[in-house]
């Protein structure tokens, strides 16, 4: 497998990253990221916002694995986010299982859905891939809308509030905003560590090879379809994890979490932060949610401001906030 690392393709950005700004920082990117996240609740306007940054950041990180690193633009990732959230909520609310089991159920359902959707979608490319993922996720949306005895339909899923996280020997008050924040941070930290490992593995190099030049990667003997599918499923599971955390955080699952607008939101956050960078998606989620939070207190036309800022980014800073910072560092 070491052969993979010797393939001369475009330099994988995963190993570029922070290293340019601070030599050696890349090695510590997970601890540094987690440290940054630990400070958030003390600097943001509210802890509920900080938890949302964690959840949407993780969602964007999962999406980035497919979009930024594998180069597949999916418009259907709300399906995995929502599936994870609904599965967790139903597992707790209807079947009364423990929170941890419910999280595992959420991941399993999101993973299963991602496998099926991935198998159907990766046969197509480019705009067709985006359209197929969009169509399949809308199928999931309408299924949830119709199966109202399970999902609560339009009213959303309710009745599964997790108020304590019980561990063998002790338990945590999950209604306390800070406890909730740091409990979720631990899960996000594990997920970040996993993503970092995956990106540094031969698999990480192959997905970037596919993004840069699919034909060449295929000619080098890699199983492109299988790699794409694996990347799709991993990305789906990470988005599912964000979904389970969102369900536990808000104690509801709104039907909107499956809506294509959520898919669009994920793409927007990833682009805003910087697709194809490790910490960029978190910056994107942070920037978007912060803008929304602050501007909507000032004016009811906050979407206008956010929209203009997004257009400016697409026109002048296509690498996003974090991606631009990195390339500035590189230029020095």
């Amino acid at each position: 497998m070491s052969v993979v690392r010797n393939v001369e393709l475009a330099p994988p950005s995963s190993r570029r990253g922070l290293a340019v700004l601070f030599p050696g920082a890349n090695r510590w990117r997970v601890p540094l990221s987690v440290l940054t996240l630990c400070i958030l609740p003390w600097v943001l306007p509210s802890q509920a916002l900080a938890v949302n940054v964690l959840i949407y950041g993780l969602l964007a990180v999962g999406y980035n694995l497919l979009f930024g690193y594998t180069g597949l633009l999916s418009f259907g990732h709300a399906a995995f986010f929502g599936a994870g959230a609904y599965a967790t909520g139903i597992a707790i609310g209807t079947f009364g299982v423990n929170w941890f089991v419910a999280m595992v159920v959420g991941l399993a359902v999101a993973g299963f859905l991602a496998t099926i959707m991935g198998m159907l979608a990766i046969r197509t490319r480019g705009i067709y891939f985006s359209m197929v993922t969009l169509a399949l996720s809308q199928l999931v949306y309408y299924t949830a809308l119709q199966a109202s005895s399970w999902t609560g339909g339009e009213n959303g899923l309710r009745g599964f509030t997790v108020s304590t996280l019980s561990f063998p020997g002790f338990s945590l008050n999950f209604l306390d905003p800070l406890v909730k924040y740091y409990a979720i941070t631990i899960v996000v930290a594990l997920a970040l560590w996993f993503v970092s490992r995956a990106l540094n593995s031969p698999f990480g190099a192959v997905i970037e090879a596919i993004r840069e030049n699919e034909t060449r990667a295929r000619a080098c003997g890699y199983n492109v379809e299988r790699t794409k599918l694996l990347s799709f499923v991993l990305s789906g599971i990470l988005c599912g994890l964000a979904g389970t955390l969102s369900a536990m955080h808000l104690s509801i699952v709104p039907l909107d979490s499956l809506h294509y607008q959520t898919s669009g939101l994920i793409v927007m956050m990833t682009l805003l932060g910087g697709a194809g960078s490790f910490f960029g998606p978190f910056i994107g989620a942070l920037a978007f949610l912060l803008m929304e939070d602050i501007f909507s207190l000032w004016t009811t036309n906050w979407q206008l401001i956010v929209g203009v800022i997004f257009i400016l980014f697409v026109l002048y800073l296509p690498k996003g906030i974090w991606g631009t910072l990195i390339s500035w560092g590189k230029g020095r």
Partner: protein
Amino acid sequence: MTKGIDKLVQRPISRRTALIGLVGTAGALSMPWIARAQAETIRIGFPTPLTGPFAAEANDQVRSAQLAVKLANDKGGIAGRKVELLVRDDKLNAGEAATRTLELIEKDKVHAVVGALSSAVQLAVNEVTRARNMIYVSISQSDTINEIKDFSPYTFHEALNPTMTTAVVARHSFQKGSKVAYLVADYAYGHEMLTGFKRAAEVIGAETVGEILHPFGAADYSTFIPTILSLNPDILCICNFGRDQANSIKQAVDFGVKDMMKIVVPVILHNQRLAVDPEVFEGVVGGANYYWGLEETVPSAKAFNDVFRAEYKGAIPTDYGAYGYTGVASLLMAIEKAGGTEPQKVIEAMEALKYDVAKGEQFYRKCDHQSVQSVLVLESKAKSDMKSDADLFKIVANEPASESILRSCSELGFKS
């Protein structure tokens, strides 16, 4: 070997314990603030969809709620404390509403929450507030929130619910043997109204000839209207809300529907009537919680209209706006009676409260905390009958407050 494993196992636990210790210390440090809370301002959270298709109604709610707070402060506050209203935009999105409510509770330390304007959104707010023992007064129509699954002692519902609205509207517009066709917005509000109307129609002996669903926020209704015409009903019952109401009625009228049948809506909206010409709504019948014209017969309505006019340069309060006023005013009366914001005492005070702030006597039913109140049936006036620009509706009926139009407590799942 086992020692090594033990070490590995113990390490994460000790870190967690350290974390809990940290959090515990932080919690202990914040105790004095909690103890000080009694003398401070009474803060009421008010999440409402300032952006989105219900923005007009939401802005009316805010204005009326602010008026209720201002009146309380003008007479020296409630239980000796100032009152503050914290308005937040929930964007008509349940997830956003839950986040905003968490923010109001955790960061702004509100003492109660009033608001929301959609079935899904109010249920989301309710889920967050009831888990944290926070009083919530919902001011948007819903039947689900009355049912035992979503109820909690902290949940109050000031708005009408679809069951009582449709029961009264049907009583004054359906007749035995009437053929009724329904055009229904395909989401919770539409479905609950449809269920209510069919239930009422069964009692009256009216016949359902067809149910047509349209997507929420639809702009084009021309495809549904030929189907409705072919059903040949006596009454077309259009169950939708906000902009959808004006759009669907306008297009139905363009197709000449009104010459062949009567149009009935569950809730006839002041703002939607204002959005189109009087000819469009002329003769349309619908229910309402409030209409300013009540001032001719109800003294509290006159008083409410007068303070509203004085505050907002001659403007008049609207139907959904009035919910903001009655919701906040009833909560403040209960806080006054309870002598503070201690939730259990406020709940007891609300359950015992009889209030008449804008539309005649109201009270919260003990089992489901639904506000028992009068229901109006309005008919939109022809342009020639309008005495002023604000003279929109004729009051067909003012059905007095009665539990008989509600579902019984046992039907909702309560043991009584």
